């Protein structure tokens, strides 16, 4: 039941209305609301029950194994929340003077330094508010760099066909034409195609390493040399940073600019698209263009760096300085781990992924790239089951829900048919991984013996199999008040 459907006219709770309402007199009359907003009129207890019930219907990392992994959100240690919610942080006004916010500014400065160190970049700006905004900042800086060199004939950004959809979207937003580079059978970038596609028109390449295929791009040095040799720059999509944290630095691979998803790799909570944090890191040649504000430190005092200190900056991306709470959580997460703990994240993420992949391969499942070692994630393909049994990746994903597992990513990357992209992350126990393997084996047995059972899954959840075609064709997500007759 929707909360609007529980609404009764005039059921209002005066106790919840603020007593000191500020009188606003300077707003033009035409902008003032003539009628009260159409909010549901429900009691406090009804509201509590409604949202508690909704949360109980949810699959989440707090309740279930969640093999979407860091791609969506990995486990958020509770200690980070506790510390980020200290009243001194929570009550700080963003316009508060620098001398009254030295502790907060110090945390952000340290976070900049930690991210520089772990990625091997020269400078970092924390201000982008999400991965996509980090990408926008990154490619805007590439453009600013070429423009500053009067090198204005570069019109193309290269993107491998295994890339995240945000990469071509970002390049297009920044006014570039996207040229797609194919992937070879081993899962690496096709170097011959890359060589043919590069030239004086190349502004740069956007690359994820490890790639979305869950493998480390072995030819990264050659790719960097090819693109740099024609004057293009290398952009690192940080979506899969979890696999190499503290082990390999994008800066050492030859990348010029990188964005990091703190809400993924540095474990901060985000749901339904926000709030996130997508800091950007750059090497020396892109440093002048970083978005502002950043935090500077002269050995005594932390200060905001803005237009005066960074005159060539691409500018501001948000009011104030990104999502303060997310940045603080990421800082605390990094400090709790320390340098040593950070490389353990990569080790255990990779170990868990390879353990799960090996167990599933032993159980008879097909891997998309059987000859390659997995990174923090791997791809299983159900193409054989689809062809022989008519059982698809969606059927497996839906049936997993009945067994108490959130479904992994399905049908991505696009170049692998009927795929499940499985990322267990570093925090899952061996028991949880073994239970997942057992469930997959049981589902395969069901596919062999009672395939119709799978077609109707899930059976145990508050919502059964949705008609995703109807949902996409006839989108209806807004509640509208019915006219009473």
């Amino acid at each position, binding site marked *: 039941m929707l909360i609007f459907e529980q609404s009764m006219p005039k059921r209002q709770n005066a106790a919840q209305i603020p007593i000191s309402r500020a009188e606003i007199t300077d707003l033009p009359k035409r902008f003032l609301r003539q009628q009260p907003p159409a909010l549901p009129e429900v009691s406090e207890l009804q509201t509590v029950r409604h949202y508690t019930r909704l949360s109980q219907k949810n699959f989440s990392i707090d309740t279930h194994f969640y093999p979407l992994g860091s791609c969506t959100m990995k486990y958020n240690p509770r200690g980070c929340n506790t510390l980020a919610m200290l009243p001194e942080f929570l009550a700080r006004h963003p316009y508060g003077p620098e001398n009254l916010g030295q502790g907060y500014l110090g945390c952000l400065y340290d976070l900049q330094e930690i991210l520089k160190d772990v990625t091997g970049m020269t400078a970092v700006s924390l201000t982008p508010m999400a991965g996509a905004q980090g990408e926008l900042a990154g490619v805007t800086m590439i453009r600013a760099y070429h423009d500053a060199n009067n090198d204005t004939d570069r019109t193309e950004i290269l993107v491998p066909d295994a890339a995240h959809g945000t990469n071509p979207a970002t390049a297009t937003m920044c006014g570039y034409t996207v040229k797609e580079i194919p992937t070879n059978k081993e899962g690496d970038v096709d170097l011959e195609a890359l060589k043919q596609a590069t030239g004086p028109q190349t502004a740069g390449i956007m690359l994820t390493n490890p790639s979305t295929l869950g493998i480390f791009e072995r030819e990264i040095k050659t790719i960097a040399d090819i693109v740099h040799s024609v004057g293009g720059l290398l952009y690192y999509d940080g979506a899969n940073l979890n696999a190499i944290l503290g082990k390999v630095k994008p800066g050492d691979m030859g990348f010029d600019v990188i964005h990091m998803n703190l809400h993924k790799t540095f474990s901060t909570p985000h749901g339904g698209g926000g709030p996130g944090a997508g800091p950007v890191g750059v090497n020396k040649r892109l440093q002048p263009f970083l978005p502002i504000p950043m935090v500077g430190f002269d050995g005594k005092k932390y200060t905001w760096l803005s237009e005066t200190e960074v005159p060539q900056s691409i500018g501001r991306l948000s009011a104030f300085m990104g999502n303060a709470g997310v940045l603080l959580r990421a800082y605390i997460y990094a400090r709790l781990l320390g340098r040593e703990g950070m490389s353990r994240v990569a080790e255990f993420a990779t170990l868990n992924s390879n353990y799960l992949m090996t167990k599933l391969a032993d159980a008879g499942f097909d891997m998309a790239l059987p000859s390659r070692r997995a990174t923090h994630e791997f791809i299983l393909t159900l193409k054989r089951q689809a*062809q022989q049994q008519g059982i698809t990746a969606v059927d497996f994903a839906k049936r997993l829900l009945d067994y108490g597992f959130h479904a992994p990513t399905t*049908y991505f990357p*696009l170049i692998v*048919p009927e795929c499940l992209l499985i990322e267990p992350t570093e925090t899952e126990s061996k028991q949880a991984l073994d239970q997942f393997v057992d469930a997959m084996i049981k589902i395969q047995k069901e596919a062999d013996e009672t395939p119709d059972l799978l077609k109707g899954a899930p059976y145990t959840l508050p919502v059964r199999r949705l008609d*995703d*075609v109807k949902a*996409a*064709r006839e989108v209806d997500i807004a509640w509208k008040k019915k006219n009473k007759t």
Partner: protein
Amino acid sequence: MSNVPDNLKYTKTHEWIRQESDGTLTIGVTDHAQGLLGDMVFVEVPDVDANFNSGDDCAVVESVKAASDVYCPVSGEITETNEALADTPEMVNNDPFGDGWLFKLRPTDPNEISTLLDANGYQEIIAEDSH
């Protein structure tokens, strides 16, 4: 097995091309492609009078699984588009070679059609795909 009519031309990227008597070409996506993509939920066709080079992405077919670009098979100018697809994208699934057509195009160079695949050539492409 998917249907590959003999009287059509094809591309590696799964478009089909029919030569009309007035010199225009009708273009759509193949039965094989619609089968891989699954149920269509949205089709974006190009603007009439727009010009494209061969290989340009000029339309989008979006299914519950993925959004895919449709590439212009030969250079030319768009003369007509299938407006009915806005309300009934499922025609691409139900009748890919008939009512599910996407757009018509007047080729800049009619000889370019000879560079396209015939039904046999396209069958080979599909066979490679399903390995």
